[in-house]
């Protein structure tokens, strides 16, 4: 198929940037979206032009590195990561608009690459277990109901791609932050530090300049892992109970 790509080009973080149109021919519908961009970049390189910069790594939908706001939606028209999006989701003759994630906390580095270091700093603020949990205990020593284990695992499937922030009208990081807080708050090792974790991670989230939640639900719908809004409610419970009962005056 033949396509027109309307791609956001920006030299660096201080450049104003703008859209550039590219025509691309003979794209197979079996190609992934990123393979299609590889073809474009090969053509650009051969012409001696600067290729379009975009983030990618595993291309298996598990690392959270790829991003791209495609035709008005994070990760494009399917509920999946951009690397798992295939060209059969598009028609011959389509114009595809490709933009970087738009958020003050995700500054554009170059073209379609944004710096998602703000997510790392939220995790660094408390998204871990620092208590000494010792050696591997017997599996039956710490009974965890299947339902709780499943729910914690569902929260843990967050790959930190930032689609929630990209989809949210307020560029809020609450779905991401709540997924990590939930995952750890539901399991015995994580419960020990739950209060401090909630306070610190939320303080960091605010510090990074993410917006507030309006409960529109856009984040969960666009999340490639389908992280549920119940995590945000749980984070709020964790936070409200932490502020009234923690030792931090």
């Amino acid at each position, binding site marked *: 198929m033949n396509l027109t790509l*309307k791609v956001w080009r920006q030299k660096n973080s201080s450049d104003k940037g703008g*859209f550039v149109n590219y025509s691309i021919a003979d794209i197979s519908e079996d190609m992934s979206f990123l393979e299609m961009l590889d073809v474009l970049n090969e053509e650009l390189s051969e012409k001696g032009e600067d290729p379009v910069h975009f983030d990618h790594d595993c291309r298996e939908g598990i690392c959270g590195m790829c991003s791209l*706001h495609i*035709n*008005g*939606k994070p990760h494009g028209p399917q509920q999946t990561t951009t690397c798992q999006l295939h060209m059969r989701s598009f028609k011959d003759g389509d114009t595809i*608009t490709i*933009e970087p994630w*738009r*958020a*003050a*906390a995700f500054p554009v580095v170059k073209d379609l690459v944004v710096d998602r270091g703000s997510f790392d700093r939220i995790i660094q603020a408390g998204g871990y277990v620092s208590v000494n949990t010792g050696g591997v205990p017997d599996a039956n020593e710490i009974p965890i109901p299947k339902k709780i284990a499943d729910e914690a695992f569902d929260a843990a499937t967050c790959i930190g791609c930032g689609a929630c922030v990209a*989809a949210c*009208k*307020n*560029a*809020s990081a609450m779905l991401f932050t709540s997924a990590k807080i939930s995952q750890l708050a539901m399991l015995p090792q994580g419960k020990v530090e739950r209060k401090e974790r909630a306070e610190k991670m*939320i*303080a960091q*989230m*605010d510090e990074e*300049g*993410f*917006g*507030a*939640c*309006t*409960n*529109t*639900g*856009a984040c969960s*719908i*666009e999340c490639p892992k389908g992280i549920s*809004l*119940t995590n*945000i*409610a*749980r*984070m*709020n*419970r964790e*936070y*409200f109970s932490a*502020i009234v009962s923690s030792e*931090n*005056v």
Partner: protein
Amino acid sequence: MSWVTKTFSSTLGRKLLMALTGLFLILFLIGHVSGNMLLFKDDGGQAFNEYAKFMTTNPAVKILSYLTYISIIGHVIVSIILSSKNKKARPVNYADSKAATNSTWNSRNMGVLGTIVFIFIVVHLQNFWAQMHWGAIPMVTYESGEFKDLYAVVNLAFSNIGLVALYVVSMILLGFHLYHGFASAFQTLGLNHKKYTPAIKFIGSAFSIIVPAMFASMPIFIYLSTLK
């Protein structure tokens, strides 16, 4: 910063204030709509005027009314603070956005709806509340004593089709605001549960249709009765 100021300067603390003031205003709406149903009573406005006097003189009602003023002002101020933070969180907008595929229009435009509802509240207070407190209102005498004839003021106001239209449109927009706000407040408080959330959503939807419809029926009813 103490833990209290730290909490209320965090986004979640401010969201908590939005939810609590919003829920209080929902309770206020229940009281307001129930009392005003007296406008439909066919007694020349006696019950309504007696009720209006009670509402402006009873000390317990006074406390509730001050809480209502605080809630309205608080809800507005905190929403302005949150909205400005939200705007700053996305300095560059998308050239192409298909937000309609992942969220409802009213959930994305709570600020717009709220602003219009707030303007309506100001007009509404000027129409009746300010008249009742400081306006020159005709007096009417029943067996139980002398009363300000607010009923006559209401009748006069709603003989104006323009004002009736303004009230009806405002109530429709309030309905959209509540349609998202009601359930959203519970979610913000962290009250999301398999057993109760479907019920909260159902009650919220029903509330946001029924209560504004009841309010809107009042100016329509009075306008129609003044035509006779």
